[in-house]
């Protein structure tokens, strides 16, 4: 094995992640590879400040993939303190010695990182042209308070670090999907669209205009639990859920929604008109997807199994493109 690899393990460099949401997604795209199983992971966390509960769930998630954290490397005192209290070993990795996996750089991953080939490609771009008959032209419930906030453990706001390094493409997550898909000449094969736009009329609340605020500048509400039927989370900013969102639950954010798990309920991103908002999940089975003023329902013909399991991590992302909600899926080709 190459120098720098601990025995039976490898290094994941997440130091470019600008916030927890991104970190979780980078990590998930790496962890999706079956070779991760049983490995000892050395996590490079960079400057990101992670609170104890955040680090704990990252650890739990790595463990849920049958892997282990060997040690972490961090520049943040906060993260260091969290690691100490969790009994996670801290070690320093020097960039010179060790070939590292830069999660944000595709070529790095391919060339230097173990045998992982993260070939995230656009697989399917849904055609969402059809409309159906539900009409609505009034204000929707935007201003409801965070209903489950009191019940949810471990909720806090996370300050987003806004250092944009020039090396990192700001939207690398998306660009990968699109450009790679184009390069690979991947076209959607299935005729059936996963989501169908609802003709709901103007559903943005009165006085709210469409806008394109950078969601990365918004605070993030971090929730470490499964949302069950009947539970609602509403937040001005981004919402990151580590866990599943069951059918019957509702997530409403003025920014992005990220579910590290199965999203089965209703998700409304950009609820105050932000058309750049995205909904991301490891499995996107939302009964309804709402982004800004666009509503889409899951296709009736889409057969979602009664019991949903996910051992396979194939993150999906929904966002608006040309006035339609489109969904991109990462697929591993092997």
């Amino acid at each position, binding site marked *: 094995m190459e120098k720098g690899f601990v025995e039976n393990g490898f290094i994941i460099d997440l130091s470019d992640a600008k916030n927890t949401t991104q970190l979780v997604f980078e990590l998930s795209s790496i962890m999706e590879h079956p070779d991760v199983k049983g490995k000892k992971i050395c996590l490079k966390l960079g400057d990101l400040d992670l609170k104890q509960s955040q680090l704990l769930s990252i650890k739990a998630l790595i463990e849920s993939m049958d892997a282990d954290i060997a040690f972490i490397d961090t520049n943040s005192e906060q993260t260091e303190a969290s690691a100490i209290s969790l009994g996670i070993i801290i070690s320093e990795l020097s960039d010179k010695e060790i070939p590292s996996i830069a999660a944000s750089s595709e070529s790095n991953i391919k060339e230097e990182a173990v045998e992982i080939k993260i070939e995230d490609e656009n697989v399917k771009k849904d055609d969402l042209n059809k409309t*159906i008959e539900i009409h609505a032209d*009034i204000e929707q*419930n935007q201003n409801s308070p965070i209903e489950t906030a009191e019940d949810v453990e471990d909720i806090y706001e996370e300050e987003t670090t806004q250092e944009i390094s020039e090396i990192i493409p700001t939207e690398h997550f998306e660009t990968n999907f699109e450009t790679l898909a184009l390069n690979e000449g991947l076209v959607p094969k299935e005729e059936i669209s996963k989501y169908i736009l*609802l003709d709901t009329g103007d*559903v943005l609340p009165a006085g709210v205009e469409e806008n394109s605020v950078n969601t990365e500048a918004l605070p993030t509400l971090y929730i470490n639990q499964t949302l069950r039927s009947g539970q609602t989370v509403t937040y001005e900013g981004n919402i990151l859920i580590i866990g599943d969102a069951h059918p019957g639950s*509702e997530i409403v954010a003025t920014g992005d929604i990220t579910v590290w798990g199965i999203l089965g309920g209703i998700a409304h991103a950009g609820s105050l008109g932000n058309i750049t908002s995205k909904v991301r999940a490891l499995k996107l089975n939302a009964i*309804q997807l709402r982004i800004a003023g666009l509503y889409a329902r899951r296709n009736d013909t889409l057969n979602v199994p009664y019991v949903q399991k996910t051992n396979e991590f194939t993150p999906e992302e929904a966002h608006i493109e040309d006035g339609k909600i489109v969904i991109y899926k990462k697929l591993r080709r092997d």
Partner: protein
Amino acid sequence: MTGRVIVITSGKGGVGKTTTSANIGTALAKAGNKVVLIDTDLGLRNLDLLLGLENRIVYTIVDVIEERCKLKQALVKDKKNPNLSLLAAAQTRDKTAVNAEQLKEICDTLKEENDFVLVDCPAGIEQGFQNAVAGASEAIVVTTPEMSAIRDADRIIGLLEAKEEIKSYKLLLNRVRPSLIKSNEMMSVDDVVEILSCPLVGIIPEDTGIITSTNKGEPIVNDENALAGKAYRNVAQRILGEEVPFLDLDEPKGFMAKIKNAFAKLKAKV
């Protein structure tokens, strides 16, 4: 036009109110009537699932009451039958989000433009029940041939009788298993009717097809071959005033059986 508002209630939970609402609603609509189904089980809504309409719900009854949308906008049209629509319950709220007066107002508005308004009532006798009953003038009491369900149905009938607005109420006996009745392990239809002294509107057999139809979001009345589907179609016809004989679910008829039956009745009453 003034339509009929019928509440489907039971007292005991899980005896088949929602299944009955979805099926009778679908059957009435198929027969050419304009039908609205109202789910009043706030926080535990199911009717949308049984009809396979969950993905179409944008507004719920609570949005109507809290004036976030107009009543018409909240009506979700059925996938197959344009005569049928659903006013969904809110999943993220509880029974206190709605009161009886508001529900009555909604029923009154809906009956102006529909032949039937069917109200799926939550279990229990508390506010949810009071709300559901408020706008109705007829009731269907669902029960199963079990002592506990019958006891609760009896309680409900008592409450309905005390309500001036309820002009008529009928019994729907669900999950009947002829083989068990035969072996005297289940009360017979006659027994139940006698205990409750209430006219029957339908007898629905136990049918595993109901489980699969629930999971598919497709009421069993749409299945021409299912016995339970046929039984529900008959209920719809009776509601429309036709005389339809009850399905022969193979009740014991001989002399010996009658005696056995009498014993079963005794046992049941003890």
